[in-house]
C-alpha cells in the first residue's frame, strides 16, 4: 500500500511538472527578456575581455560591441514585463515581484543602465583607458538593478 501511495505521489509530482512546463505563463515574454540579457552579456564579454587584458584592444570591435549594448539597453521592452511574470509565479524567471511592487524604481534603474551604456558607447572606440573608465559604471548599473530585482541564484 505504501508503495502504491508513493507511486501515486511520484506520478502526481511528475504530472504537475509536465503540466507546468506546457502551461508556463508568459513563456514568450520571459524568453525575450532573457534573450536581451544574454545579448547584452555577449557584448559585455567582448568589452570585458579587452578591459581585463585577455584580448588585445581593438577600437572597431569595441565600438561594435558598445553600439550593440546601447541598442539592447534602449529597446522598448515594456511589453515584456506583464504583471504576474515574476519569480513567485513562474519558476523559469528570476525576476522578483519587487519589480511590480509599490515604490518600485525599476524605471529609474533601467534609465541608469541606458545612460551608462550611452557613456560606454561614446568612449569605447577612444582607446583602452577610455573603455576601461566607462566599463565599470555599466557593471555597477547591472549589479544595482540585480541587487534589488533579481533572485540571488538566478
Amino acid at each position, binding site marked *: 500500500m505504501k508503495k502504491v501511495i508513493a507511486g501515486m505521489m511520484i506520478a502526481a509530482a511528475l504530472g504537475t511538472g509536465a503540466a507546468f512546463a506546457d502551461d508556463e505563463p508568459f513563456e514568450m515574454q520571459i524568453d525575450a527578456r532573457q534573450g536581451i540579457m544574454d545579448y547584452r552579456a555577449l557584448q559585455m*564579454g567582448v568589452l570585458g575581455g579587452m578591459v581585463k587584458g585577455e584580448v588585445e584592444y581593438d577600437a572597431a570591435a569595441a565600438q561594435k560591441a558598445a553600439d550593440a549594448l546601447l541598442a539592447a539597453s534602449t529597446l522598448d521592452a515594456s511589453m515584456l514585463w506583464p504583471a504576474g511574470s515574476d519569480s513567485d509565479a513562474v519558476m523559469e524567471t528570476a525576476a522578483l515581484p519587487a519589480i511590480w511592487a509599490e515604490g518600485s524604481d525599476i524605471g529609474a534603474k533601467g534609465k541608469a543602465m541606458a545612460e551608462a551604456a550611452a557613456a560606454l558607447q561614446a568612449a569605447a572606440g577612444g582607446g583602452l583607458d577610455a573603455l576601461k573608465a566607462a566599463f565599470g559604471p555599466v557593471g555597477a548599473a547591472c549589479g544595482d538593478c540585480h*541587487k534589488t530585482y533579481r533572485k540571488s541564484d538566478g
Partner: protein
Amino acid sequence: MAIAGVAGAAGALFAARPEALQPQALDGLSADPARGEAVFWAAGCASCHADADAKGDEKLVLAGGQRFASAFGTFVAPNISNDVDAGIGGWSTADLANAMLHGVSPDGAHYYPVFPYASYSRAALQDVVDLRAFLATLPADPTPSAPHEVGFPFNIRLGLTLWKALYLDSDWVVTGDLSPEETRGRYLVEALGHCGECHTPRGALGGLQTDRWLAGGPTPDGKGRFPNITPGALDWSKADIAEYLNSGFTPEYDSAGGHMALVVENTAHLPAEDRAAMAAYLKRVAPVK
C-alpha cells in the same frame, strides 16, 4: 514569587553564560582605524546593518532595519551605528569582541546566530580591535532597533546555550597544508567573510552541515537555492572567481543578484590580493557534487 522567578532566570542565565573574553585579553593591543576599515569591508557589516539600497557613504550608516525571514521567525538587523543609546556607541572593545567572537551581548545575553558569530569566532582579536576603532568613526543614527519577530520556543534565548554547545566551533573547516595565500583566503572566507553562513546547508536546528561545506542549499524562504561554490560545482578559474568578487561579473558576463550583489560591493573594497586569496582557498575546498 515573580521576583524569585526572575532571580532564578537570572541565575540560570549567569550559569549558562558562555565563555567570554578574559579581562586581560586586550592588553597590549593597539587600535588602527584604517586597518579596521579593511576589516569592516571583509566582514560585510554593511550588507546587513546598512539599508539594502544604500550607496557610497550611506553604507556607513549602520542603522539596521533589514529583515531576514527564516524557519525560526523574522530577524531584524539592529542599529550598530555610533549612537550611544540606539546603537553601539557606548560599547568597549571588549563588548564588540564578546559579541563577535562569543555571541554574547554586553549584558550577558546570547545573540541569535543570524548574527554570524559562528564564523566571526574564528577572527583574530587584533581585527576586532581595529574594527572597533573604525566603527567609532562612523555616523550615529538615533533610529531604535526593531525587535526580532520570533515565536516560542525560539524567543527563549537561553535555548541558544544548547545551540552554541552544538555548533559554535572556532576551528577551521578546511585543514591541511595550505599555502600562505590559501591560508589568508581561508581566514577571509571562513571567518570575516562568513560565506558559509549562506553557502553551507543547515540542519533542522540551524547548525551548519560542515561535511557539506560551501555546497549550497535552500534559501530560508524556500524559494531558491544558495549555489554550491565548491570545486564540485563551481568550475570557474581562480581569476574568474576573483573578478566576480571585484565586479560581480560571471565569466559569461551575467552579474550578481540579490544579497550576493551586496556581498560584491564589500569584496570590491578589498585589496586585489585578498580577492585572489579567497579564490585560491575556494579551489582547495573539498568538492561536493
